[in-house]
């Protein structure tokens, strides 16, 4: 079983702490995560907004490269990239003529053998994760799934689209206390971070306010876009809601890393816009 790693562009740039924390955790767990050879950008929102063939061709080239390298599955921690790769695999496996056409475009014979796996699935597949927890992450957390981990259900076939539980279960294993809240799968404004920051501030503001009002100490995310909007766009969010919001936004791999006793710097926690200050407490308090 060979698991490849598709970082995608943001994990190399604005979300580098997601990559740092994932690789630190994987090293500790003794899991190898070789990158998909010479991977390209998945095309993100831009490609499918402009052209369907392009939106399928870019992920198809990535998946074909993984397949050629003998990878049985590809871990795609960015939820947005995960969506584009999953949609492409789904559509090309569904339609042979389309698969041949796109294979021709990318000069590869794409078969669809490599499975596309998100970060929650990958972490959940590690046996006895609890056994690795040295310093329980004993905090009240709001697990934020966002849109693309669970939707569209017919494509991702993962968890349930309303009120999902998989991330909550993982956080429980880390010693955290996940809260019930209303914005688990609402949208943060996604790719509008630069072009319509006003809308991102509005949507992300609603998400953070709900998490805070229900007593969460941190929001846990599994997507660089969600992190960018909830963390880096905090000044715009605060302007929008007219008050200060201090709740930190933490990648699931950072929370796991902390629970495994990996130093915060190795998990890139110093790179956040909103300082990650969590007061120590016991699980009972």
């Amino acid at each position, binding site marked *: 079983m060979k698991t490849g790693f598709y970082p995608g*562009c*943001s994990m*190399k*740039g*604005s*979300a*580098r702490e997601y990559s740092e924390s994932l690789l630190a955790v994987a090293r500790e767990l003794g899991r190898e995560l070789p990158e998909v050879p*010479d*991977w*390209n*950008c998945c*095309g*993100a*929102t*831009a*490609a*499918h*907004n*402009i*052209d*369907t*063939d*392009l*939106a399928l*061709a*870019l992920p198809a*080239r990535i998946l074909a490269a993984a397949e050629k390298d003998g990878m049985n599955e590809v871990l795609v921690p960015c939820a947005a990239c995960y969506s584009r790769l999953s949609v492409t695999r789904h559509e090309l496996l569904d339609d042979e003529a389309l698969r041949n056409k796109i294979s021709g*475009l*990318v*000069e590869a014979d794409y078969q669809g053998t490599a499975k596309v796996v998100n970060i929650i699935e990958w972490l959940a597949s590690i046996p006895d994760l609890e056994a690795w927890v040295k310093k329980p992450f004993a905090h009240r957390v709001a697990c934020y799934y966002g*849109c*693309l981990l*669970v*939707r*569209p*259900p*017919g494509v991702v076939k993962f968890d349930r*689209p*309303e009120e999902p539980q998989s991330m909550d279960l993982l956080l429980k294993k880390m010693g955290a206390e996940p809260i019930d809240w209303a914005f688990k*799968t*609402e*949208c943060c*404004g*996604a*790719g*509008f971070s*630069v*072009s*319509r*920051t006003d*809308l991102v501030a509005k*949507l992300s503001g609603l998400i953070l306010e709900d998490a805070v009002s229900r007593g969460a100490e941190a929001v846990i995310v599994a997507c660089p876009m969600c992190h960018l909007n909830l963390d*880096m766009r905090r000044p715009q969010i605060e302007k929008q809601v007219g008050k200060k919001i201090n709740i930190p936004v933490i990648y699931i791999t950072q929370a796991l890393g902390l629970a495994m006793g990996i130093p915060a710097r190795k998990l890139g926690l*110093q*790179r956040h*816009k909103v300082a990650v200050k969590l007061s120590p407490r016991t699980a009972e308090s």
Partner: protein
Amino acid sequence: MRSDTDIQQDGKVLSDRVLEKTGVAVARCYQCGKCSAGCPLASEMDFPPSQIMHLLQLGDFPEMAEKALRSHTIWLCLTCEICYARCPMEIDIPKVMDALRHESLAQKKVNPKARGILAFHRAFLDSVRYTGRLFEMGQVIDYKLRSGHFLQDLLQAPWMFFVGKLHLLPERIRDRRLLGRIFARIAKTRENRP
């Protein structure tokens, strides 16, 4: 009424062309409004998603299809997939939005309010075409030149650079020629499309 060439390409109304391109039959929509109720940006849209479905259903009247193609909605749609996940008829609305955006672009009917969003997408794809990846800084500069929004975000850049999130040079993939060929092939097929 059926002579409007823009609306009636190949003698087909817009909803038929959408069906052909996406396999999604908007005729199945019974206007329950669930999509619009859950849509995070319905309040910002000129037509919420259920109304876009209705405009397409009325596509025998060219002015209805025209409204859909010229709407702000199709560019505001975030592809968050909430509508699709909740639609009792399992209508893939985000896919319809994609098809409408493509027609709107091809027919040069992009809503003027969506120019910034489109400039962003184009700057993004240019980066991918030439480097194989997204070069965040290059893209933001390119976007600013296209959209004229120079000042916004400028204050963020030094901080991002400081915490090591912004690179001054792009990462490039090895097989950029293949990427060039893929983009060129797609541009060619697009020219040949009606």
